């Protein structure tokens, strides 16, 4: 689409074209199976391991902590379903604002007889570490709390949760696996798993301009999982490695992380600018706060009550602007779409009105100006219908 203003980076980032092509070229050159012991096989293996090292560097961890997967959903599923290897008496704890790729596996585990506890977030979309610690008991095997929420941008107190979990571990004299879905954090805000005290973390390539269908799992210690096969990725994710995807992911991760601070600062300015500009509009309610320590500067969640978010998304789409309602993964399913905001205790009307504006490194100030112009006009004209004057 010509003149598209793309503000839906939280569902998929605009790909870094040059890096995608570079990864295709490299993978065509090193085409062989990295498990083969002949020369071209070794060459492919070398590219794979170089990539692993590069991703590990961005996370300040060892290469052996990195397991390449098909993306965030698979990484989250791998950890959640590893519970089944631990036996039925093991329970799990998740927050109420998790992405569907954590929430749905937890639901399935519950159906299979696993004890699942869901801890809601507060009205600001933040999960209380104390509330998490309180529900951990001697049967808890896994705790999963995301780093940055995909709909509100709320940054969760992962470090504090980690510390409390370790204390509970000591008290209960057992190990608890602490997982975080860091898909919206990686490459956007500083994210070092070791510093946060997590045992595993999910990251994804297409959220940072890399190719689709690839991601990774940071794993502190080896873990028994459900997958079986040829033993690739230390047996945790068997299957011939997706070298092109993995190398493209690596290049994108490197680019994002090398410019993380500058981009973060720029995103903060853009977000402030948008919030200031929208706050005077009729019915405007921000769910994302201004504090950049508590909310990702890349995501803005705003409602123009009582205007349904999906109506606004359609109108803007016709004007060449791409934004979303809630998360793209659940846009088509109304009940699922409202789950996160309703879990936070937001009234249904605010949840139904919510739209998500998310941006990235190539978002230009001029685009934002044009977007704001159009959004204001459309909101005003739609509100004239929505609210009887």
């Amino acid at each position, binding site marked *: 689409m010509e003149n598209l203003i793309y503000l839906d980076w939280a569902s998929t980032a605009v790909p870094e074209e040059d890096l995608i092509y570079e990864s295709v070229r490299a993978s065509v050159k090193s085409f062989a199976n990295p498990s083969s012991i002949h020369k071209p096989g070794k060459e492919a293996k070398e590219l794979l391991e170089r990539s692993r090292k590069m991703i590990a560097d961005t996370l300040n961890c060892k290469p052996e902590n990195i397991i390449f997967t098909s993306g965030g959903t698979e990484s989250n599923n791998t950890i959640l379903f590893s519970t089944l290897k631990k036996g039925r008496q093991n329970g799990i704890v998740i927050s109420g604002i998790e992405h569907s790729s954590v929430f749905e596996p937890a639901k399935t585990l519950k159906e299979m007889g696993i004890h699942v506890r869901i801890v809601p977030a507060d009205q600001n979309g933040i999960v209380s570490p104390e509330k998490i610690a309180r529900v951990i008991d001697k049967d808890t095997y896994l705790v999963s709390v995301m780093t940055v929420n995909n709909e509100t941008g709320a940054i969760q107190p992962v470090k504090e949760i980690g510390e409390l979990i370790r204390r509970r571990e000591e008290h209960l004299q057992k190990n608890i696996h602490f997982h975080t879905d860091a898909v919206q954090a990686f490459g956007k805000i500083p994210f070092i798993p070791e510093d946060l005290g997590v045992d595993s973390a999910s990251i994804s390539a297409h959220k940072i301009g890399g190719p689709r269908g690839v991601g990774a799992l940071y794993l502190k210690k080896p873990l028994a999982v459900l997958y079986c096969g040829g033993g690739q990725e230390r047996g945790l994710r068997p299957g011939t490695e997706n070298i092109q995807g993995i190398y493209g992911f690596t290049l994108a991760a490197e680019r994002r992380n090398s410019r993380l601070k500058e981009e973060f600062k720029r995103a903060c300015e853009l977000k402030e600018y948008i919030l200031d500009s929208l706050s005077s509009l009729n019915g405007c309610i921000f769910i994302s706060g201004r504090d950049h320590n508590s909310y990702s500067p890349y995501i803005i969640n705003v409602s123009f009550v*009582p205007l349904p978010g999906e109506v606004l998304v*359609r109108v803007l789409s016709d004007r060449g602007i791409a934004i979303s309602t809630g998360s793209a993964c659940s846009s088509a399913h109304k009940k699922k779409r409202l789950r996160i905001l309703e879990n936070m205790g937001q009234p249904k009307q605010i949840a139904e009105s919510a739209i998500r504006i998310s941006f990235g490194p190539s978002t230009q100030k001029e685009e934002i100006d044009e977007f704001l112009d159009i959004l204001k006009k459309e909101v005003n004209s739609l509100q004239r219908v929505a609210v009887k004057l």
Partner: protein
Amino acid sequence: MENPYLIKIGEIALKGRNRAFFEGLLFKNIKRKLNSHRCTITGKQGRYYLSCTDADKKVIDYALSTTFGVVAFGEVRKVPKSIEAIKDASEKMCEEILYCSEGKKFKIEARRSDKSFTYNSYQIASIIGQHLRDTFPQLSVDVKTPDWIINIEIRETCLIYGPLKHGPGGLPVGTAGRGILLLSGGIDSPVAGYLMAKRGLKLDAVYYHTYPYTSDEARDKVVKLAQKLSPFLSGVDLLVIPFTDIQIRIKERAKEEEMTLLMRACMMKIAEIVGLKRGAKCLVTGESLGQVASQTVESMRFTESCTNLPVFRPLIGFNKEEIVELARKLGTFDISVLPYDDCCTLFAPRRPIIKPNLKKMSESYSELEVEKLIEEAAENTEIIHCP
């Protein structure tokens, strides 16, 4: 020798002098579905034979099982008029039946209109029955309560057929005139359309599109519903009516609790206008008494007062589960439950009126001053042909 299909009809056979009209439309509707193939229909007295040289069996089965007026049908084997040939053919047919039926009790029904044939009906039945018992020892003859029957007819040629498949029954589409179906994306209205087509009504469908308040996905869903219904309706035109301006006018001027009813009133008016242009003599809705606020006696009395055409509501006495069951059989249920709303929450009152006063509602309607918008909407209808 190519095999024809036997088609049996039900109540059409009871029509007196009008029978030719009903038969004519039945044949036309069947041929319409097989129009890319060469086919002829012959026969009389409620038994017809469809010959279609180049169509796949599945295509013919589908055409006949979706054509109202057809009560039963099945492929008939044409064999030479010799008892040996009849034995062979019966044996083959028996094998086929045993392949898909558990039943072991059978009966042979023979009819002989060509009296020059060596054996009479009774003799044919005995000979073939004996032959099948000898060939398939597990079978037994039961003339009173058979599990299945093989029919043998000695006419100009000899015809043999086993159990027939069920057709949908009813009357051929078009024999009851034309109507307009108000088709939403919900579960009920497609079923209502099916039931009225079963009684011979030729339908066009209208859908009211409120973009951007409802999505194009909601519209596509209704197109899919119309396509799914189309075989039973012998083709249908879906008329997509741009409804946004009217909906906005209602929002601007109506009392909140009256919004839905006034919207329904406008829909009736538009359906009447576009319907009359197409020769429709009635409207059809999926309403069921008391299901929602706009489907109480008082509400329907008001919405009905907005049109001079009779409004047929074939589901009026149905429970939701009964409607769902029909929708599942029809294959529309899975489409209807797709999560695309056909009405935006902005236009849905929190507490809709359930016992409206006819006079007051009529006044509220006049206050909308919506006539011009209604004419424009009818004028700007988009037509989607669903063959």
